[in-house]
């Protein structure tokens, strides 16, 4: 009989070993799947994991894309992870991302065609405030009326999408755009653009902000009293109350921070890679970031790596579709396997497998 037994303390080796083993297992299981589909498994794996970074033909385009895609994922996931650690579940980052983008873009377009260098910083602040305000709705409803923040934040995503459609076709529509939906292009206008800072790397201000967020989150969680209270509230709510943690304040703070960074991520996206507010400029980063946060074990460095890995499978997956004709569902199944193995093996860092009957002390 196989049994799981809780370890007295988490095993350090497995915290690092489990993700590596998970990637290897995904390669084996995924390779098997590709083989059944009639593709060369070794080549498929290589195209997904290796070619985007190191193949001469693709790397020039793919490598910057890695950071372009990973940047918003990491930034949003860092914000979410703070709340998740405290047991506060913001599922609506996608909505905060959209509202942040609309507010930030609206601020920039209000000064059009000025090229004042203060406009872009103003857009960042407006984006952060927009995301923050959108997150305050579930926060206040939760602390005042005890509504469930999971439901409220999730449903507000659909409200935000409706507002986005209205903005793209209505109040933010490009007056010179011959009636087509979509705003003026922010990325092509100096003053409102979020340019690539180092040519050929894909690093724009959003990616920089994501890196700063990783460092800030590390400091917050390891050194600051707020980080301590977040961890305490998530691990032992009664002990947190005993220590004097104000639960309502923590909810407002955590939802506020995650909303603000999601809003910033939205602004960086709309002013850079996406370029304009369009009906569907949001590409699900807010939802994918939830996966990234958990994949990174809610740890800032883990999230950084998870964001890069996730971005790699996206880019590599597209490449595999293009080059080898692997069907899109197979790519999604492959990504699913990666998540499955990562989360399933996580159990080994806290539990050990025993064979036989219970003999615990």
């Amino acid at each position, binding site marked *: 009989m196989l049994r799981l037994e809780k370890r*007295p*303390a*988490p095993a350090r080796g497995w915290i690092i070993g489990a993700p590596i083993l998970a990637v290897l297992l995904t390669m084996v299981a995924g390779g098997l799947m590709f083989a059944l589909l009639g593709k060369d498994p070794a080549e498929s794996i290589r195209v997904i994991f290796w070619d985007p970074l190191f193949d001469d033909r693709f790397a020039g385009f793919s490598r910057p894309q890695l950071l372009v895609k990973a940047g918003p994922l990491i930034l949003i996931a860092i914000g979410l992870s703070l709340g998740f650690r405290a047991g506060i579940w913001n599922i609506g980052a996608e909505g905060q991302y959209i509202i942040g983008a609309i507010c930030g873009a609206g601020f920039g377009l209000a000064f059009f065609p000025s090229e004042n260098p203060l406009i872009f910083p103003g857009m960042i602040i407006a984006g952060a405030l927009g995301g923050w305000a959108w997150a305050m709705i579930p926060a206040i409803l939760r602390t005042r009326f005890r509504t469930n923040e999971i439901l409220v934040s999730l449903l507000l995503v659909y409200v935000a999408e409706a507002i986005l459609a209205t903005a793209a076709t209505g109040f933010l529509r490009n007056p010179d755009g011959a009636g087509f939906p979509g705003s003026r292009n922010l990325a092509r206008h100096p003053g409102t653009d979020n340019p690539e800072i180092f040519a050929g790397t894909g690093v724009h201000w959003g990616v920089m902000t994501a890196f700063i967020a990783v460092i800030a989150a590390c400091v917050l969680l390891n*050194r*600051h*009293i*707020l980080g*301590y209270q977040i*961890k*305490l509230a998530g*691990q*032992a709510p*009664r*002990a*947190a*109350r*005993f*220590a*004097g943690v*104000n639960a309502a304040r923590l909810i407002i703070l955590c939802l506020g921070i995650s909303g603000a960074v999601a809003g910033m991520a939205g602004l960086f996206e709309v002013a850079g890679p996406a370029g304009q507010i369009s009906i569907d400029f949001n590409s699900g980063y807010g939802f994918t970031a939830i996966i990234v946060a958990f994949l990174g074990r809610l740890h800032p460095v883990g999230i950084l790596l998870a964001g890069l890995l996730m971005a790699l499978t996206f880019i590599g997956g597209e490449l595999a579709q293009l080059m080898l004709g692997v069907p899109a569902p197979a790519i999604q199944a492959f990504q699913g396997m990666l998540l499955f193995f990562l989360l399933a093996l996580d159990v080994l860092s806290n539990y050990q497998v025993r064979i036989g*009957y*219970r*003999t*615990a*002390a």
Partner: protein
Amino acid sequence: MGLTPLLTIDGLTKTYPGVVANDDVSFHLAPGEIHALLGENGAGKSTLVKMIYGLAKPDAGAMTLGGAPYTPAAPWAARAAGVAMVFQHFSLFEALNVAENIALGTETLPPPRALAAQIREVGKSYGLPLDPGRLVGDLSAGERQRVEIIRCLLQNPRLLIMDEPTSVLTPQEADILFHTLRKISAGGAAILYISHKLEDIRTLCDKATILRQGKVVATCTPREVSAARIAELMVGQLLSPPARTERAPGEVLLKVADLSLEPVAAFGTPLRHIGFDVRAGEVLGIGGVAGNGQDELLMALSGEVLTAPGAILFKDHGIGAMPPGQRRSLGLLCAPEERLGHAAAPDMSLTENAVLTARQREGLERGGFLDWAGAKDFARRVIANFDVRTPGPDVVARALSGGNLQKYVIGREILQTPTVLVVNQPTWGVDAGAAAAIRQALLDLAKGGAAVVCISQDIDELLEISDWFCALNEGHLSTPRPVRGLSMEEIGLMLGGAHATHKAEPGATHAAA
């Protein structure tokens, strides 16, 4: 004796990584014998019982039951062989009734109506009245224990194992339990009785086996040996009772006036018009069985639940609406009963757990940033001063044994030199040596001019350290009385609530005088 032994234990040895839990343990039980198993925490009592009940396999040695070799692979096998056990912590569902709870733990299930009749019948013949239809959530600790005992008795066991059965009972309830246990043994079943309450064992048990560090150090007839001698055998050294010195009462440091609270959790107890005051240099003992409002009282004092400002006065300042951190800064510190999850976060290290309550008074936070070096230093001091057995301050709290963690959480508060300290069950599950150290530390604190409120189920402990005694019963607190000159009878009545009702809602008529 000429009787064939019911259970023989011969050379049982069990090793866990790093410790020899049982080392060549041998003894035997005759049918109808009440046999005490004594020892400090960590002496190996639990491991031995686990092997008898099929929860652990011995590395070496053999057992026989009724003359036949006995090697239970699992608890069901032990029960099938006629071995039943009542655990210290009850495994009952509060939202189900008595009969449903008993049915859940019984392998051979009679139809519900027959089961209810059996429960009544067994209850009557052993002096354990119990209504099968009552919700367990509404039962007292003593009544819950009856449910567990009846569950065992329904299987007609040959051997009944009782683990610390009186730790949750009032003296009167304990008397009823002893009466029941004698009836069971008169019926021919043997009882293995695990306890650290020496007086209980001396009144109840025929024989005693004393374990220390996994070995049998003595077998004796408890009636013929003094409690002090048994304690010495258990601990391996002379125990000195806590030293008390006379002291002049100081100013009132903590005053609680007409504190009423609705319960926070389901099956919680409301607090009703609680009032007491504690002076500098005094220890107030609050007795009573857990679940009568102890948790709620502690949370009101710690600031986890806020009240009207004037309901709790610290040096004449109303602090009832003040959050926990501010109360700590003032000097009111608390140590809750539940160590894991309330007093300490299980997955955090001892250093991190030091920050939990010592942040304000030890200056472990500057401008929002935590001083981890200082926290580690403080954790080390707690570990050293209170003899916490652990490799170091980086170990997570749940890796510590219950007694060691208790020493840590009590030590953490005492080292912060509180003005008023409130502790709930300070020595629960702590071995005798450590319990004595904790009691002495509480007395020393009071001697140094602090006021101490000690909430405990252990009456002996309260009588040992308190100046004043009162009891919590269903959320009512009896009027505190000086401990000196208090008789056991009066204490029993206070615990039973006889002195509590006169403070109940004014205007309520008493059905019986």
